[in-house]
């Protein structure tokens, strides 16, 4: 046997494995990707809400992408309380101004950032929200203050279409 032959063979094996791996990957990817959110799910990505009937201090809950969204019309005391919090006291520091464009309206995804339960309104040690599943406390700006949740409740992309309507998403 010559010295060169095994090298040629090795090259052919390696090349075959590489082509084979690409082929397997190309076949597996559609099988994996079919589980991702599909076109019909993505199509429901925005929703418009009429907030004209929401009283001061009240919260309404609407469904957006299958998740509850809290829309709270905050009282001046609640706004003041949220603004008075020092950044050092927060696990996930975020200013209230950055969370509520119009301080009277707090719009956020009503899903606990721990394991996805829906927190209860006007409960907990910080007069905001309390998650009954594993005991996370949120303040009047929806920021995590105590408990296992790592992050503040998410503020989705939203805008006021007019003074009475909020478009989420």
């Amino acid at each position, binding site marked *: 046997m010559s010295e060169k032959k095994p090298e040629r063979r090795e090259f052919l094996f390696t090349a075959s494995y590489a082509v084979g791996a690409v082929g397997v990957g190309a076949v597996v990817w559609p099988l*994996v990707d079919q*589980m*991702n*959110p*599909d076109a019909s*799910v993505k199509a429901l990505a925005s929703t418009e809400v009429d907030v004209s009937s929401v009283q001061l201090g009240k919260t309404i*809950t609407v*469904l957006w*992408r*299958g*998740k*509850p969204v809290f829309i709270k019309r905050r009282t001046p005391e609640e706004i003041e309380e949220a603004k008075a919090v020092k950044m050092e006291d927060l696990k996930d520091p975020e200013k209230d101004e950055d969370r509520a464009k119009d301080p009277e309206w707090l719009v956020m995804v009503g899903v606990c950032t*721990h*394991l*996805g*339960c*829906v927190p209860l309104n006007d409960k907990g040690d910080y007069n905001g929200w309390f*998650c*009954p*599943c*594993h*005991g996370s406390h949120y303040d009047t700006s929806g920021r995590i203050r105590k408990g*296992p*949740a*790592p992050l503040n409740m998410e503020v989705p992309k939203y805008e006021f279409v007019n003074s009475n309507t909020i478009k989420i998403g």
Partner: protein
Amino acid sequence: MSDQEYVPKSKFGKWFNDRLPLLTLASHLTEYPTPKNLNYWWTFGGILTFCLITQIVTGLTLAMHYIAHADLAFESVEHIMRDVNYGWLIRYIHANGASMFFLAVYIHIFRSLFYGSYKSPREIIWIIGIIIYLLMMAAAFMGYVLPWGQMSFWGATVITNLFSAIPFIGEGIVNWLWGGYSVDNPTLTRFFTLHYLIPFLILGLVVLHIWALHIPGNNNPIGIDVKKPSKDTVPFHPYIVIKDGFALLMFMIVFAFFVFYSPNILGHADNYIEANPMVTPAHIVPEWYLLPFYAILRSVPDKLMGVVAMLSAILILAALPWLDTSKIRSAVFRPLYKQFYWILVADVLILGYVGAMPAEGLYLLIARVATAYYFIHFLMILPILGFKEKTIPLPLSITDPVLAGFPNTEMVKKKESLN
């Protein structure tokens, strides 16, 4: 082994067996030499096989009536309960069957822990068993989602959200698992598919589990190697078959008690409320068989570390054959291990209890201590104990302690004085 010498008596049998040796397999299974001192804790393998078959048969029949759609699933389950002939019976057997399955598997696992069945040369049997146990948990969880009640929905939400603890890619994985931005119809249909698939994967692994068992043969209560076949063994049939059969009957009485007298006691009333993504039930708890791990999850205040601790608690079992450094298998001859064993049993029961309680105050403190102890048992006590413990001398054979030289000299004296 004697299997090779097996020759079918009939001519057709011989013709068939030469082409496909099923009769040789049947002969091996009936003749299979089994230690004659196996106690009733050894009957749970057979009981578990019964549980698996029960779940497959009742599951297949339920699938003929169930509709995997977010708008129809809840109603179709009520339809099974009220309209389908014997639907209530089949569903109650299936639902309680899951609990019975876990009851039996926990006894089976703790039997292994007591008698050291996971040690060399049985590590592969043990690891296959742990994989089966993981698949059982996956199947049970997904099955619990199918009725699409409040507990189904929120249980699915909480458990799938465990993956969101993974840094950077967590959220992408969760959306992929859901097929959307929350638990919804796409989640239900894929859970149904996987719930249907997993029992058959388990069935395949059970075959491997038994195959791996038949290489070294059964461990036994005194944990010594047994010569096979010898006067220390009996053939599987009829001796073990009869004993397993009797134990199975006893087990079925317990099973039937739950099915006929308290079919809902192990479930949650909240699951008779249809899933509502806007409202989380006040008190979410998993099914009883997952509670110890749930307690471990909640006892860690950090989200990622909580998930890591919970998964480690299960996966640490796979490393057990190497964490336990003692060469002696049975706790009968390990006076210290025997005590730590019972402390572990108590620890797991305590974890189960606090897992069902709210995660606050004293319960949280107890959960943290019990979680710490769980890991200390496997990571510190077991490795050290193998070197430090003074064990009791092993008998030479199973028959030995009965005929003479019983390890407990007091007993021998008593016997002699009686004679």
